[in-house]
């Protein structure tokens, strides 16, 4: 009986892992192959477990997160137009160009 329960737990965990990997991949606009899914679901949860070691550090809830290493102020440039790329330079790296526009996929279904 115990074995069966453990097996069920295990297969539920595998199912959860698979669903989570698929949902994060979807959010990230990545299409994973079956072998990539298998590899990542094993690796990523081990890596996340190693990240959980941070819970052992006692950090005051008042501590400010450090988004940057220095508390420097962002210096915005003057709001003046400056050198710009030419149209040729802008399109130079694009393959899908039509009538002076970048061409992308359809924005809505027909």
């Amino acid at each position, binding site marked *: 009986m115990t074995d069966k329960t453990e097996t069920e737990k295990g297969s539920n965990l595998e199912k959860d892992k698979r669903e*989570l*990997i698929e949902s*994060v*991949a979807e*959010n*990230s*606009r*990545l*299409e*994973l192959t079956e072998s*990539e899914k298998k590899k*990542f679901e094993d*690796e*990523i949860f*081990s*890596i*996340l477990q*190693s*990240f*959980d*070691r*941070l*819970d*052992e*550090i006692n*950090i005051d809830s008042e*501590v*400010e*997160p*450090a*988004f*940057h*290493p*220095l508390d*420097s102020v*962002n*210096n*915005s*440039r*003057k709001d003046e137009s400056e050198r710009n*790329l030419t149209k040729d*330079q*802008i399109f*130079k*790296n*694009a*393959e*899908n160009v039509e009538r002076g526009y*970048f*061409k*992308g*996929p*359809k*924005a809505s*279904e027909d």
Partner: protein
Amino acid sequence: MSTVKEFIKERQTEISPDRLHSHLKELEDNYNCFRQINSLDSLQKIQNKDKDLNGLPISVKDSICVQGKLSSAGSRILENYTPPFDATAVERAKNAGSTFIGKTNMDEFGFGTFSTNCAFETPKNPWDKERSAGGSSGGAAVVTSAIDYPHVALGQSTGGSISCPASFTGVVGLTPTYGLVSRYGLISYANSLDKIGPLGKSVFDVALMMDVIKGEDYRDQTTVSRQQGSLHGSLKAEVEGKKIGVIKELIEYEGVNPKVRDNFWNSLKKLEELGASYELISMPTLKKEFSIPAYYIISMAEASTNLAKYSGIRYGLEKTPDKKSFNQYFKEVRSEGFGQEAKRRILLGSYTRKAGYRDQYYLKALKVRRKAIEEYKEKFKRFDLLASPSMPNVAPKLSEIAKLNPIDIYAMDVMTVGPNLAGMPHLSLPNGFVKGLPTGLHLIGDHFQEQEVLNAGYALEKKLGLDLDPD
């Protein structure tokens, strides 16, 4: 061949573009270090004799944009990208009279410790071609180590990508204070961690190039306006009276090769002979269990947002967009263009920023980073410098790396992630050999104390007098 110092001061050495070009091709054939070598035609046209750097050859890491040259950041998704502008660091180096010789191979977007995650070629270590050159600025370090000309490389570090390859190939690498060098034109890995810095054969070489590339830039809002004066002009081989803190959590880390540890203590003894003193200190946040997760959570979260811009429109890898929905098209391009480590980091970065997990991972890591910065600042009230080995070991064999899992690989960054998280300047200086392979010493300074770090490195470099020619 003359040193960089002789080359720019004595101005006696003439570099033949033909011979230089042949030599660069030879380096590429031997070590896979270049993504692209500048054409002979371009090399012949460069006239720099009347400028400060006298035509000094410089190589540029593939993630740093050079106008009209391939700038792929080691990724298939940017395979044919040629930027129409120079990064600020490149523009400044060109204006000072350097000669651009080529783009150097690297891990895709900087995602790696061994340059084995490059979409194009894996650089080989000039000390042993079966071994890694380190990552992610592997190509930059190989060129610096093996080239027979005066030369400085522009590299980039996010969590150790200058120190690691510098240590593995026996060259000097300077990672500057965050914000001292403009990131404009750097293909981002993680914005709050990325720093462009030089690799050279000597401390003078990196000090010189830092003077050229540092300084405020209105095109990068995070650059700082701080004035430092001339680092190479003020270089003094003096450590008399300096106090050095040896980071206990790093030197006692169980993964340190005992012979790397011996070289470390030998360096500290030499610094003591030169008049410095040292003391063992504790910085608990730098323990591997904490610093590695904090670094990887922050860097992956930022990387996953940075890589969201690669969508197969305007530049980079493109497919045929006809009859496809937005999502289908993006998925097709991104799934083909990104390598395995980039996908792994996108998945992990997206996960740790996800609603419900953000506090547990991302915000927690940022708070740990705050704690690490405070620990450094506290220590710098008492010490002028902090020290550790640059890497826990010598360069591993490429065949051994292939057997490692991601957690083992990430753990190799234990020495380097601390100063990178805190944005502290640090120098990796060659400090000896283990079985014929170079090792490195990390000297870390407080924010903007590059001069302090360079002077100590300069003094020790002279005292050690190592032969760092891999041939």
